[in-house]
């Protein structure tokens, strides 16, 4: 199961959408990290805390609704994910153009608040896509640890056999 960094920029009235995404992810067995936003975006403290949280995650889910006032936060969080080769999945309200924020290749799941049941299905779909996107990271991480462990064991064996 994945550790998801949930980046968001939603209108104040759309707080429940963030809660829904989080609940669906948790019920699906994932761990969700919310972005630390106590400090102004771009400030050194905010940047360090956000970078640590992104690095500790397997995948970033970027959620944006129309009228969301936190696009500066979202852009920085997504940019940090790109810089650190973290997969990004976008969950965008239908009226938002993905090319404004995300480069080509980022999976985009649209949702429409005016059709709540379909929006719920879209969120579930996005969480599924996020889980799939996280798999190579987790497997890669596991493989990396295995290779690292084998190298260390080899070095130790070589050092011992020299004595």
């Amino acid at each position: 199961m994945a550790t998801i960094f949930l980046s968001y920029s939603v209108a104040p009235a759309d707080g429940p959408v963030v809660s829904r995404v989080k609940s669906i992810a948790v019920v699906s067995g994932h761990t969700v990290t919310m972005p630390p936003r106590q400090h102004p975006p771009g400030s050194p403290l905010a940047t360090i805390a956000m970078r640590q949280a992104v690095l500790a995650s397997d995948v970033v889910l970027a959620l944006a609704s129309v009228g969301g006032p936190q696009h500066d936060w979202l852009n920085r969080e997504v940019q940090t994910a790109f810089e650190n080769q973290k997969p990004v999945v976008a969950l965008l309200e239908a009226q938002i153009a993905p090319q404004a924020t995300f480069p080509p290749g980022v999976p985009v799941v649209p949702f429409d608040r005016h059709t709540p049941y379909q929006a719920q299905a879209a969120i579930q779909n996005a969480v599924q896509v996020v889980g799939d996107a996280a798999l190579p990271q987790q497997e890669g991480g596991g493989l990396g640890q295995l290779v690292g462990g084998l190298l260390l064991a080899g070095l130790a064996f070589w050092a011992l056999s020299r004595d």
Partner: protein
Amino acid sequence: MARRPIAIIDNTLLSCLGKVGIHDRLPMVFDRVLIPPAVNAEHGAGPGKARQRLRNLKKELPDFFVSCNDRDPFQLLVLNEKLDAGEAEVLAQADFWRTQQAQQQVYALIDERKGRAFGRRLDIKVWRTGRLLVEMKNRALISQVQPYLDNLRSRTTFWLDDSAYRAVLRLAGELSRF
């Protein structure tokens, strides 16, 4: 001065507090206690004493013990997949109120392990009966936690294993760390 927090209470915990007779001290800890419909229904379906107790609570403190149905229905649907109706409603309401009341803390009062685990994963502050008793002691509303815990363990279906029992007493300063 900061307002006291809001609490949303589950059925088991509501029963526990009623049985040991300390529900009347809750207004010194919380601003109000919200009772979701599923908790009302579970309590209503319980023994006559429990039904009567809840009715009396609402009659004695009508502005404090409040029936409440404010939550996101879609989030509730999701939580209902994994939790029983009462726990799911408590967590959905706690999350709802947390987003609505940024200036006021919100607590989910749940005893069941699964509900508490989900609550923590959703970043909701969850207290169980033991933690609530410790808070009451910290506010000098009760002098000791242990008699209430013992009472609950002997008289009710309140489930608290030995290590959790000791942890609560340690938190209350009633058990040495060594």
